[in-house]
């Protein structure tokens, strides 16, 4: 290297000297973590795939639910036209998605010919005292039901007029009400599914980003750059930056998923559930971030105890097992046991959002559960950060927790 380097200190004051506007080290570390992830092809692809799956799930549902049925129906008499017109009006008033286009045809046989050639979807004629829909190959049930409704309404209203009452009164007398003793939510399969989705999201994101922290720690340890960093900035800043960076990424990704999920839900027939689901989703994100904070330092600790990425499987086993237990307990328990674990840190991140979805939760319950998790987080930060600091420069093989705890700085 025929190099002429800058004089050792002459530029120092202009370059590294002044502390004004100096960015805190943890923020630079967090920024690097975020930038590295956002430019990592695997991360982007997996996020995109999840989004595509989410969007297409809701998209297909929405498409199926919102697809409009449009029929061109031929009529031969004004009476038939009147029935269809009222059918179209009733359907429109009910917000249905069956659209009728009414066409006059001269004779029944001309109409049947048009149906055969698919110019018309159906022909609507009066046969004696009964009404008939004439189709080509398959009966169109939604068309029939729209027309039936119109006919029933006609019959009902003429009968009501004859009886000196109104069709609304007749309808009221001919229907029964249903009162359920359980709340709506408890019975709603939708809420059960949403709870399951939250649980899976919590589990997957915790593992994904937790492993991300552990990996990033072990990579720095493996490549020994941690020694350069440790000589430059306090390890506390390095750890904080890593956790904040991963936390921001995790929360960002989850918010994206939940947001897309809610928008997707609004396109389906389950749109009435949105207020309840959105509330629980807010709590879910809150519980996620506190639960994530409680685990983050433990993940970093698992990374520091490993010497190579291959060791992570075993050093992180206690954490991933706990998460698995939290996941299954949160999904499968009910009643009293569910209530109990909804206050246990980490488990509460799955169990409490589920209880919130199922309803009947006092306002202080999620607050208490959050506070307990936050207190637990303080403990794990203290414990995990200590082990992280002490294990980071140990490069002679994987450490057990006992060995790591016995290390001195």
């Amino acid at each position, binding site marked *: 290297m025929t190099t002429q380097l800058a004089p050792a200190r002459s530029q120092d004051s202009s370059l590294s000297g002044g502390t004004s506007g100096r960015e805190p080290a943890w923020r630079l570390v967090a920024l690097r973590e975020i930038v590295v992830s956002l430019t990592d092809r695997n991360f982007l692809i997996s996020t995109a795939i999840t989004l595509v799956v989410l969007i297409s799930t809701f998209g297909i549902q929405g498409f199926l639910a919102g697809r409009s049925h449009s029929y061109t129906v031929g009529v031969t008499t004004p009476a038939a036209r009147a029935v269809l017109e009222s059918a179209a009006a009733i359907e429109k008033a009910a917000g249905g998605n069956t659209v009728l286009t009414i066409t006059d045809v001269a004779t029944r046989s001309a109409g049947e010919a048009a149906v055969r050639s698919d110019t018309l979807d159906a022909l609507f004629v009066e046969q004696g005292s009964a009404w008939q829909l004439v189709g080509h190959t398959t009966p169109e049930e939604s068309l029939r039901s729209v027309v039936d409704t119109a006919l029933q309404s006609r019959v009902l209203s003429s009968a009501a007029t004859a009886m000196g009452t109104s069709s609304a009164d007749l309808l009221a007398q001919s229907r029964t009400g249903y009162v359920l003793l359980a709340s709506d939510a408890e019975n709603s399969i939708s809420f059960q599914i949403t709870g399951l989705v939250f649980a899976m999201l919590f589990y997957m994101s915790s593992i994904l980003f937790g492993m991300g922290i552990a990996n990033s720690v072990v*990579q720095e340890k493996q490549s020994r750059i941690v020694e350069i960093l440790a000589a430059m900035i306090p390890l506390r800043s390095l750890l904080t930056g890593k956790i904040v960076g991963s936390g921001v990424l995790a929360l960002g990704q989850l918010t994206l998923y939940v947001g897309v999920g809610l928008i997707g839900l609004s396109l389906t027939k389950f749109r009435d559930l949105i207020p309840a689901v959105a509330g629980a989703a807010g709590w879910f994100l809150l519980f996620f971030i506190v639960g994530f904070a409680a685990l983050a330092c433990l993940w970093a600790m698992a990374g520091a105890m490993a010497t190579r990425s291959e060791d992570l499987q075993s050093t992180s086993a206690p954490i991933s097992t706990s998460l698995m237990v939290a996941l299954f307990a949160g999904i499968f328990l009910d009643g009293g046991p569910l209530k109990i674990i909804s206050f246990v840190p980490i488990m509460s991140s799955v169990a409490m959002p589920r209880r919130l979805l199922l309803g009947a939760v006092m306002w202080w319950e999620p607050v208490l559960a959050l506070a307990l998790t936050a207190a637990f987080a303080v403990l794990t930060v203290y414990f995990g950060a200590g082990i992280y600091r002490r294990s980071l420069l140990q490069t002679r093989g994987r450490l057990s927790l006992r060995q790591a705890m016995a290390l001195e700085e």
Partner: protein
Amino acid sequence: MLTVSQLTRRFGPILALDDVSFTVTPGTLTGFVGANGAGKTTAMRIIMGVLAAHGGSVQWEGRVATAADRAQFGYMPEERGLYPKQKVADQLVHLARLHGMPPPAAKSLVMDLLDRFGLADRAKDKLEALSLGNQQRVQITAALLGHPRLLVLDEPFSGLDPNAVEQMTEVLRDQASRGVSVLFSSHQLDIVDRLCDTLVILAGGRVVADGTLDQLRTRGVARHRLVLGSDASWVRGRPGVEVERVDGSSAVIQILAPGAEQQLLAEALRRGEVHEFARIVPTLTDLYQEITAA
């Protein structure tokens, strides 16, 4: 000036450093030599503040070194790393910013250094895509980012081809000529011999020798080679000398008493032709083996 005084460090039952003291003066290249496990890396980590000492202290300019002092130390750890999967310029800028530089200054310094190291066209490549020699250049660039006054380099020459060794040598000489104190460890004693002004030899966690090469060379027993025109066996039994070996007309002699070599030479000249009479200058390898064997 860096002064390491009476450093002690244990790892469990193992005493890794035992009362280690030495100095590194500005503008000099100090070689740190010793077998694997002698304690070089431990000492360097303690100097850099990434490992705590159990006794003794690291002083900079006469005071116990602080974090602010250490911000002026450039460090290149053993089995160097950086981030293999991040782009060269990106990670150097990140390190420069951790040194406290604002983004524009960090960028221009990094591009400047990369340019001078002939790596400007690799700035956007991932580190792992570079050859080992080039990775080493990036590594030394990283150590220079903070405009260090002290460079602590753990095995900067390991794994380098002869060309890259030459280039690294130039960088270190250049830094020393700018008044930077340079401490580097190496197993390649020929490089240390060629490059170093002073030397610290570590064995079993203790400093077994320390000083300039000349000081080390003269501290042992002086040995001379004598080549005569005829049989040399008469040197045995001369006063003040110890004969190591006689091989026909040549002999290797240790001079035990001052002036004994003059008497020996006079006697040799009186007896006939003298083809050679010279002090044997030991190589560093010889010295190292002699010192660490003791």
